[in-house]
């Protein structure tokens, strides 16, 4: 009797241990992620200024937010930045992957060169490009000293073009990684189909257009999800490269949220902008994660 009760206790304990082991992480996640999300969303409906406060104001912060030209600028910049960043990274990544896949000598040397920027902090990337693009000491100055007196390249100081320098630095940082994703996809393609198509006289161009690129769909999807996620989060790069300027020319939602919350003491509006950022990410990530997890079952 005593023995079986003891064994019973043991099996019950064994059933509980896995859940006990998981519980600290779950508790942290529920509080620090989902609890905090609720808290921030709630704050976006309050009159919080320098500190959180709980006076309910309804949609007022959202009304104010959408009327701010500063927010509008950061959204337009986000559109330009994210659009170009995603498209250019995908094109360069796919192009380099296809080229590298042609039995290239020295592939082992080239791949790490393309990829190492991903290991750097955006602050480092920003610092490097900031001074390289600076017309006073960087590229423009170098060209002048090489005798090309009329050379002009002041995008980083120019309100209309500064956002493109952010795109340039961000593409430099991540395009090599996108290349790696596509290369992995290319290496997974069955060569038998390609040989069969070659027998039928298909040109390389058609092979890629009709057979190979359509098979890379999962890689395209992953690249899109990762890049859009990185784009919406972009913060440090802008801080280091342009500081949001000149003027507000390179403000993005992430920098907007930071300055309204911590330096302008408009926490309610800051929280509202963060909520909109979260919703945008959720709209992209949830269908993706849903599909991924369902397939795996």
């Amino acid at each position, binding site marked *: 009797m005593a023995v079986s009760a003891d064994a019973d206790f043991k099996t019950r304990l064994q059933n509980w241990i896995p859940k006990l*082991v998981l519980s600290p992480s779950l508790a942290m996640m529920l509080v620090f992620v989902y609890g905090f999300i609720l808290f921030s969303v709630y704050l976006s409906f309050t009159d919080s200024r320098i500190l959180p406060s709980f006076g309910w104001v309804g949609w007022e912060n959202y009304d104010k937010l959408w009327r701010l030209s500063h927010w509008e600028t950061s959204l337009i910049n986000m559109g330009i930045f994210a659009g170009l960043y995603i498209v250019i990274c995908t094109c360069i990544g796919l192009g380099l992957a296809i080229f590298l896949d042609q039995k290239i000598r020295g592939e082992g040397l080239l791949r790490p060169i393309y990829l190492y920027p991903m290991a750097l902090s955006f602050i480092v990337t920003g610092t*490097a490009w900031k001074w390289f693009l600076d017309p006073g000491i960087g590229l423009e100055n170098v060209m002048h000293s090489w005798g090309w007196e009329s050379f002009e390249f002041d995008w980083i100081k120019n309100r209309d073009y500064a956002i493109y320098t952010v795109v340039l630095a961000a593409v430099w940082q991540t395009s090599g990684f996108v290349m790696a994703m596509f290369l992995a996809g290319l290496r997974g393609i069955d060569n038998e189909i390609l040989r069969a198509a070659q027998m039928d006289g298909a040109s390389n161009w058609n092979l890629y257009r009709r057979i190979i690129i359509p098979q890379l769909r999962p890689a395209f999807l992953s690249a899109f999800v990762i890049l859009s996620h990185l784009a919406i989060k972009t913060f440090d790069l802008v801080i280091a490269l342009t500081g949001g300027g000149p003027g507000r020319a390179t403000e993005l939602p992430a920098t907007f949220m930071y300055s309204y919350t911590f330096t302008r003491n408009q926490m309610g509006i800051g929280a509202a902008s963060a909520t909109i950022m979260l919703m945008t990410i959720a709209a992209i990530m949830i269908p993706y994660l849903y599909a991924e997890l369902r397939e795996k079952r």
Partner: protein
Amino acid sequence: MAQATQDTAIRTGRITRTLIYLVLLLFSLFYLLPLYVMLANSLKPLEEITGGGMMNLPQVFTVEPWIKAWSSAQIGVEPTGLRPYFWNSIKMVVPAVIVSTVLGALNGYVLTKWRFKYDTILFGLMLFACFIPFQIVLIPMARMLGLMGLAGTTWGLALVHVVYGIGFTTLYFRNYYAVFPTELIRAAQIDGAGFFQIFWRILLPSSGPIAVVSIIWQFTNIWNDFLFGASFADANSQPMTVALNNLVQSSTGVKEYNVHFAGAILAALPTLLVYIVAGRYFVRGLMAGSVKG
């Protein structure tokens, strides 16, 4: 088999190949250029840079900027160089990487080998947490750290990085353990092995590769973080990235570009070293974050 699938069946002519090599070479120049600019200019006296020689190799070779960036450059109010901030980063990174990796391994083990109702939903919630824009948690987190007495400390930052790193480490270990034969676990259970015994004796010995991925991923991410450091650290607990940004953005005095470049390389060095030593695993980690393992 593996050999056969490695290479594409596409055949190319000589002119095409030359063009391909040319493009690949041009792009490698593009990726190397900023590193070259940083390195070359960190070893020059300032006049050589302001005189328009940014692209040249140093004519007068000096390590002065490196020494200055490390130990005497003005950061914030104090001329301490980046050294104290480097140690802040270490103190933040080491515990955060260890704790998040251990928790990730245990979570992955439970989620694959001790499955229960709704575990996929729980995992989905954890996974989504990896991708939230951190702006949504900044305000409550600042308050929470204050309540816990951890505001402005490296321990507080380490905690933040553990919390928001678990999702990724769990993802890695879950995908890795998912293909581990469950029969082995069941057999050990029948022999009377308990939860931790199975983990310790059976799973852990074969977890080396994924542990490396998890550690590298966490190390690079936490070392390179700026947002949390800028939001939650005070002058004495700032990590390297925040200090570097303060150094570069400071508006007082002459802009010492060579010192900035030396500082940038110092901030990049740990992750670059990790990348050089274990780059293949780094790629694998990045990939696991995007496509399923």
